[in-house]
């Protein structure tokens, strides 16, 4: 492994669904931070832009056994099959308008290169990608509150969560200015992480054992024994990823002590869950 690879980050987050109250602060802070435009009527969730979207899950049982969980869903920043960087969206974009950062693990979107074919949206099973069906507009006066660090997007292009990449750039610049090689954990935190009043979101470098996200997730860097496409599976029995079996290898993990919530993260054939639920990343790999 060369020096570049040793220094490579792999930014990711873990969201504690038992702490999440569904308050929506993450959504609001995300929209505000990233200059996400909005419509007068946002009731149609299929054409409204919500980089961070909170889903409401239920266990399907009737009162008094009903349980609710809220699941915030940013872009999953997939590493793709085998975690080689060929995310479902990155590999299909015909104009290289979405790219995988091997030094950060972040899936970027180059708005000025996107020509709006929407193939990436079709390829993403998480519906994390949004198209600008309209010109971006803000109510009069609100333009003054736009962030100067994030470019607004024009009509006809796709956008999505960037893990607040501009914050990473700012942190990196500061570290460089200070004469440091790398950034500190608390120097780069996404807007949703800092806004969550319950502290349900933990963000950091999955490659750095000193980071909290690594401590919670304990990612297994080796391919899963039952699916070679899956890399980075959590060795924490309460941690899971959405649609992990597809081999998309998201860098967003979820944490819950409730079994039905963990089960909702993926699809299982009848009776399969009982065999799979205790299969976690190999303990043998530190």
């Amino acid at each position, binding site marked *: 492994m060369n020096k570049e690879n040793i220094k490579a980050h792999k930014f990711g987050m873990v969201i504690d669904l038992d702490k999440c109250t569904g308050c929506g602060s993450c959504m609001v802070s995300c929209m505000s931070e990233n200059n996400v435009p909005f419509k007068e009527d946002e009731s149609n969730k299929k054409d409204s832009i919500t980089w961070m979207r909170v*889903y409401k899950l239920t266990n399907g049982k009737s009162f008094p056994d009903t349980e609710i969980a809220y699941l915030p869903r940013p872009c999953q920043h997939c590493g793709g099959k085998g975690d080689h960087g060929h995310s479902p969206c990155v590999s299909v974009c015909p104009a290289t308008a979405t790219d995988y950062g091997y030094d950060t693990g972040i899936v970027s979107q180059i708005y000025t290169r996107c*020509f*709006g074919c929407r193939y990436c949206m079709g390829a993403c099973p998480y519906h994390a990608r949004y198209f600008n069906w309209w010109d971006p507009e803000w109510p009069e006066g609100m333009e003054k509150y736009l962030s100067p660090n994030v470019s607004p997007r024009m*009509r006809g292009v796709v956008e999505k969560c960037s893990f607040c990449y501009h914050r990473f750039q700012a942190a990196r610049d500061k570290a460089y200015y200070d004469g440091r090689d790398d950034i500190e954990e608390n120097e780069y935190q996404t807007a949703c992480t800092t806004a969550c009043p319950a502290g349900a979101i933990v963000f950091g470098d999955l490659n750095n054992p000193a980071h909290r996200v690594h401590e919670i997730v304990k990612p297994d860097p080796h391919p899963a024994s039952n699916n070679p496409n899956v890399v980075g599976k959590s060795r924490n029995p309460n941690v899971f990823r959405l649609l992990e079996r597809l081999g998309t290898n998201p860098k967003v993990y979820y944490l819950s002590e409730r079994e039905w919530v963990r*089960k909702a993260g993926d699809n299982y*054939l009848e009776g399969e869950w009982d065999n799979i639920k205790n299969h976690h990343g190999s303990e043998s790999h530190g």
Partner: protein
Amino acid sequence: MDSALIPEGAKRCSFPIFAVGIAIVGAVVLWGVYAMGLIWWKGLNQTNMNDYYGFALWIWADLAVIAVGGGAFFTGLLKYIFKVDELKNIINFAVIIGFICYSSALLILAIDIGQPLRGWFIFWHANVHSMLTEVAFCLSCYFAVLTIEFIPNILENRQANKVPFFHHLAHNMHGVMAVFAATGAFLSFFHQGSLGGVAGVMYGRPFAVREGLLIWPWTFFLFTWSAAAFGPCFTLLVTKITETITGKKLVKDNVVHLLSKISGWMIITYIIAKIIDTIYWATVTVPGLGFNISHFYSNNGFYGYWILVTEILICGVIPGLILIMKSTRENPTLRLVAIVLGVVGVCLNRWVMVLQIMAIPVLSFDTWALYVPSWQEVATTVLPVAYGIILIAVTYRYLPVFPQEKELNYVQPATETK
């Protein structure tokens, strides 16, 4: 009025009747152009697409016209490379239909993208890993080939052919057409295939994803094979429609029977491969991802098993069987039923491989998403059909498209009596 332009010996309706027909279809074109203008001016918010339906009616139309336009490359391959000489009597028409289909596909793509002025980015910033990049390159190149194949026929217009340069150019182009036919077949193999690959590589979408050979998912080969199989059905169908409207026989039965037979065997071999693919996908691929096949055909208001049965059995196996058996193939009614079913079948396959993929929930807590196109989408999808009708009408009227027309519609000159 325009008799000097009409091929020698050919009988055509009077110009006013022709003009009225063109005007009626032209009105539909104008409707489509108006919708197209709205979309370019106001954006894709004029459609009913949304973030679940990034691909919708247009992409289906795109895939469908390219599939049915496959008759051009396959007939050209048979005629020029495999030397099936009888097909010279239908090749001009197959090329014109192909030209219409591919120009329509390019037009639809130009409407479909959110930033039309950046369309060239697909070539400039090409991502070699994307199937859509392969589609763009091969589609554009093949459209150029089709244009080259179309030119000699245009130059054979009665007036154009009087110009010695055009006459010799057309003659010489015919002489080297095998090179273009081979190029066209090569390009078609890749763009038809890569259109199939567009769906097959989406490994985040269990309904679409397929295993495959090297970088190509099985849908790559299935799309190429189905276009070659069902494309000739569309050529035959449009020929039949043209014969009905003009009230003339334009292609001899032996040519129709031959192309039907080839199409039939292609359909049968394709549908066997398709059935094997479906069984493998249903029993190995999707269970491995945690899904039962029933997940893809239930709990929604539209997509049921009926669509699978219709595509494979009713519009695949049945037309294939009709066309491979001599007795049924040579029965005009049954043959027409078969080619109509075949065209519907391949269009249905493209529908499923675009819209059903988008409709199906993948996240366990998500729901089905159904979609109804807006009038602007419908109008711009009808636009290429109307444009195609006009182009066929004009070429039929002014170009010697069907070499057997004169022979099949020979009218004994009236003998003068004293």
